[in-house]
């Protein structure tokens, strides 16, 4: 699936449907981050963030939660970012798209919880991913200074929280955003 290519999402969804109509959980992870100071953010870049980080996920969520409703329920986890809550200089477009995801999380939960679908979000902090490896050393150090646990998070530490939110153990958790940030 390529969120920027017209028709790609519906094609991908059709493929998913041909594999299984019994989807238990959906995790919306894909995202881009093109950092720029506020006056340097181009309309194209802003649109790209909205298209990939927000619109694409909403489209997929609309489609798959419809399938979940027919099979008695499911769980959705959206991967947002602490930037969506705290704001981060240089991340106007990224922050706006990720903040949009948090509001969408709340609305999807309000409308779909009664249909047996829980919808939650996680907001990771500084995680050892390719997105963060692009950061220069000094910027990384500055960020880590703000993390009480004093270390960068591992991708699997985000995955384990997502797994839990998808599981029946989280049966009374919906509409929430959980920060995974080592206490920033």
């Amino acid at each position: 699936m390529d969120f920027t290519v017209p028709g790609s999402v519906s094609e991908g969804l059709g493929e998913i449907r041909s594999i299984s109509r019994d989807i238990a959980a959906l995790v919306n992870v894909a995202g881009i981050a093109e950092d720029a100071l506020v006056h340097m953010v181009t309309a194209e870049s802003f649109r790209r963030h909205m298209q990939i980080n927000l619109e694409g996920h909403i489209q997929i969520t609309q489609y798959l939660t419809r399938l979940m409703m027919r099979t008695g329920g499911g769980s959705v986890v959206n991967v947002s970012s602490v930037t969506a809550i705290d704001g981060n200089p240089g991340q106007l477009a990224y922050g706006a798209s990720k903040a949009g995801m948090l509001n969408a999380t709340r609305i999807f939960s309000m409308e779909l919880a009664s249909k047996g679908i829980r919808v939650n979000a996680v907001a990771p902090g500084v995680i050892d991913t390719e997105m963060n490896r692009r950061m220069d050393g000094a910027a990384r150090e500055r960020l880590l200074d703000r993390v009480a646990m004093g270390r960068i998070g591992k991708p699997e530490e985000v995955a384990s929280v997502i797994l839990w939110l998808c599981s029946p153990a989280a049966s009374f958790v919906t509409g929430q955003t959980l920060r995974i940030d080592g206490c920033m």
Partner: protein
Amino acid sequence: MSDRILKGQTILVTGANRGIGWATCQSLAANGAYVIAASRSGGDEFSVRLQALADACGVVASAVSLDLTDGESIREMMLFVRKLERPLTGLVNNAGVTYNALFQMSEIDTAREVFETNFFGPFSVMQGCARLMARHRNGSIVNISSTAAIDGNPGRSVYGPSKAALSTLTRAAGRELGPFGIRVNGIAPGMTDTEMLASMTDEVITGVERNTDLGRRGQPSEIAEAICFLLSPLASYVSGQVLRVDGGMRA
């Protein structure tokens, strides 16, 4: 989770004999933890019930007596914990009292008593436990707050602030104890099916349920599952957070 995610851990639970506290003991034991169950009014019945639980789950459990309004009682409990051969790895600050009264009708003396149990007591227990956890640089603390601490509900002008104090402590302690390998988190349960519900009218209860995404109240076991998650390695990078387990309560 089907795996025993707390295997090998030693976890202290306050207010362990009923409601969310007892459900927590059950989940902890089922997840393989050694449970230290503290309560004020436990008695023999509680010891028997706890032993049966431990046997059923193949773990060890100890009942200890605790009065959160009595500093000496807290010291005695901490002494018991310190003398254990296994290091303390977790604390669930669950014990609390409720108080429903309109703001203008709230008694200041009662308000102080509520803070004694809901804030100062847990504060001391946290201090004692964090000291032990810092020695081996490993620990996870979960404080049970309330959605009332965040939302500010009518009739809860004492209970809400007492829990809000605990939530803020959660965040402050998370920052201070992070460098010592201790995670500190909170849970804010929404309306949960415990004895505390008896203090609310049916009308209020139905109103809250209607205003909740899932359209129902929570079960103590559902709060307990969230507590186990935060204590476990699954939440190894989660600290300083207060997770609402409220079925999607609307403002």
